[in-house]
């Protein structure tokens, strides 16, 4: 693509042309700056409007105190996201390693693209699939087995749900949804391991796995953590998959395979909002604010780790 430029200026017209270009620069620069400032305005507006709409919750009459209402929801949000993270991260690291160090070179790019495709699937589709296909399979094959054999663990106390619309199903589907992010970031970091260090390990007589443990994983650790935190942030905010799959109840429990499960903030809003009115709407918005604060902190931690980690790996 060739760039088109102005014809060189005539000598003697320096003053006049500089006036025109100054105006152009002023306008263009001004618009750009304005756009940037607009970002700040938008964010401030988001905070302001949400707070404004949330406040009536505390001044008005509701059927139960706000903390009592939002407590189980906060628990459900964090619990589901935590489970998803624990399931997804080891898998994501393994898949990233597979793409960066195990698969034949030529397959690396198409494989990466394939996994990224997982990220492009809309969450409502995951919801439909999770509820229509995955949950029944789990209910039939997995949950009864867990209840029978591992029922002593509070997680699997049961009784196993027959519909499969449980916290465990949700956690598994969320894990599938956040896996591509963690994989993508981990893969990038693993690929960037300096060849020099990999060869140092090999020259010492390391097997491939030993080289990975010695050179690749330590180098990539902060990247993996940062990716995991980003995935966590995503899981916390996920709405539709949870809303469609989960069979919710107003309860706090660690039991992941029964019919009684705590709901998440986001799914609760999705379920109740369309039919809510008056102060109930305000209350839902208040819970949304809580969610916003939660994800904000998680993402801030992720950024801090990423910044600290990368500067530490150098040298």
């Amino acid at each position: 693509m060739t760039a088109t430029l102005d014809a060189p200026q005539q000598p003697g017209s320096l003053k006049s042309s500089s006036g025109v270009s100054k105006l152009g620069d002023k306008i263009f620069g001004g618009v750009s700056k304005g756009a940037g400032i607009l970002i700040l305005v938008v964010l401030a507006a988001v905070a302001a409007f949400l707070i404004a709409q949330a406040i009536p919750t505390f001044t008005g009459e509701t059927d139960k105190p706000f903390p009592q209402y939002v407590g189980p929801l906060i628990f459900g949000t964090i619990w589901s996201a935590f489970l998803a993270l624990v399931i997804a991260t080891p898998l994501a690291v393994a898949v990233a390693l597979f793409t960066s160090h195990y698969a034949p070179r030529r397959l690396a790019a198409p494989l990466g693209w394939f996994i990224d495709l997982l990220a492009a699937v809309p969450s409502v589709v995951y919801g439909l699939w999770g509820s229509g296909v995955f949950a029944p399979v789990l209910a039939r094959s997995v949950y009864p087995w867990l209840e029978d054999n591992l029922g002593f663990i509070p997680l699997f106390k049961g009784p196993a749900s027959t519909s499969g619309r449980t916290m465990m199903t949700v956690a598994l589907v969320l894990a599938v949804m956040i896996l591509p992010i963690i994989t993508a970031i981990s893969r990038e970091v693993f690929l960037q391991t300096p060849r020099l260090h990999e060869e140092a390990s090999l020259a010492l007589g390391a097997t491939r796995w030993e080289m990975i443990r010695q050179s690749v994983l330590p180098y990539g650790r902060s990247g993996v953590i940062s990716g995991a935190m980003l995935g966590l942030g995503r899981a916390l905010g996920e709405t539709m998959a949870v809303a469609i799959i989960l069979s919710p109840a107003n309860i706090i429990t660690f039991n992941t395979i029964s019919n009684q499960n705590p709901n998440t903030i986001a799914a609760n809003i999705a379920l109740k909002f369309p039919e809510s009115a008056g102060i109930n709407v305000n209350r839902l918005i208040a819970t949304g604010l809580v969610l916003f604060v939660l994800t904000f902190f998680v993402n801030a931690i992720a950024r801090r780790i990423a910044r600290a980690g990368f500067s530490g790996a150098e040298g």
Partner: protein
Amino acid sequence: MSSNDGGSDGDGGRHGPTLRTLDERVEMTEEVHDTAAEIASIEAVPLPDDVDVTNRIVVEHLHIYYGDFLAVEDVNMIIEPKSVTAVIGPSGCGKSTFLRTLNRMHEVIVGARADGTVLLDGENLYDPRVDPVAVRRKVGMVFQRPNPFPTMSIYDNVLAGKRLNSKRLKKSEADGLVEQALRDSNLWEEVKDRLGGPGSGLSGGQQQRLCIARAIAVEPEVLLMDEPCSALDPISTLAIEELMKELRENFTIVIVTHNMQQAARVSDRTAFFSIEGAGKPGKLVEMDDTETIFSNPQRQATIDYVTGRFG
């Protein structure tokens, strides 16, 4: 290149005297062609049948490939134990490639392979049943750029190779090993008070000695060094060359260097590789005692290289 300097002698040494006339330039070009032709005509001299292979490295009919491309052709050589052998030659002649076949690091590159025999104390490293990982524990390597593991301390760096092989080392054993390896690399005095510090916090020369310590901690028989000083300052270079003289007592050392003076300083024997032209395979042109190679070489190509006229 441009002549007409009215009599000045130019900068002898590496580039030779400044040329004056067109005739001289033509003559030079012809000489270059002659040298190339000579290299092309070299047939590898096979080793005698009755070579005593005990303790030695014996390379026979080694051909090195990148995919289908023959990079180095038909190398035959004998390397004596507990000696320093220098491998010299112009850029692109295959010296590093050759070096990396001695510890089977060459094949780490996708599609690269080597045909032929490399006997280490009678065992053929390229026997199909041989495990390359095991080879690398007997033949260690130090790279051109120092590469201590950045996330490990100095202490852990030295033990990195050892920890791969052994069961749990007792602390006292480990401490002893670290000290011995660092002493043997002339680094102990400088780092003994900060063994817990990061390996990457040292100067270039110190890092390279740390890499040497790491390599010798696994007690290999052979130590390969791929231009180990090219990224270092002259003082550090000197330190490493001194170190090599001591290391020779315990290891067989093969060092690739593009610095002929260095080869002359440190090695007992020298192998000269060269290449006929771009796209052609590299070859072992001549190998002899270092003194002989630099004062009285047999081949014209060798003469041209060591006097700085070519390459």
